[in-house]
């Protein structure tokens, strides 16, 4: 089967291609969001061990650290997307 890490890397590369190939700023911001989603998938995939349960208190969890790290990365992503969108709407017709 294809594992989550490979798919994550593929989605990151698709996002990078999207930034290179698109010239309109709003499409570039969407491509960066695709990039970040691919990154999150890659990280969650690194923690996966087969036949274990969810990453909270009980005795046999999947590695919980990547999930926590990705929370922080998602916060950064949201803040940056909001800032980029504000800049794009402010730039208006010049872009």
């Amino acid at each position: 089967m294809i594992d989550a890490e490979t798919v994550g890397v593929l989605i990151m590369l698709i996002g990078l291609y999207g930034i290179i190939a698109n010239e309109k700023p709003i499409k570039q911001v969407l491509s960066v969001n695709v990039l970040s989603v691919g990154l999150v998938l890659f990280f969650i995939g690194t923690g996966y061990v087969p036949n274990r349960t969810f990453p909270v208190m009980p005795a046999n969890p999947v590695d919980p650290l990547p999930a926590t790290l990705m929370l922080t990365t998602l916060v950064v992503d949201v803040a940056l997307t909001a800032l980029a969108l504000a800049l794009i709407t402010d730039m208006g017709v010049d872009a």
Partner: protein
Amino acid sequence: MGMTLVVKKTTTLVAPFLVTYGAYLALYGYASPGGGFQAGVILAVSAILLMTAYGPKQVKKHFPLGEVSLLEGFSGLFLTVLALAGLMFGAFFLNFLRPYLPGGTVVPFNVGVALKVAAAFILTFYLLSRWVDRD
């Protein structure tokens, strides 16, 4: 701007339950899936849902910009004071409430993070909705 009567009534009924769900995630987040950031997003979504149903101007009348800014600043200050208070008991950010609460300092920290994130998201949508009003 605004949507039809059905949408308005439905969102008015649903939004308080979202706040309850967000509060549950914040308070119980140390032991089950959840936590500060997720709870903050759900709390903000309740206000943003109202904003899409009724239009930004009416929601801004009920949740004024100044009060949301005040909430954001106070919760941020609360978080850093909580971290610095650990200094009096040993190390910086020490979990000094652990004998009293299950989970210790994590619970007030989650609540603080939830309020701050909710306030920040609502402020972001208020500022981005300025361009919506122009159309």
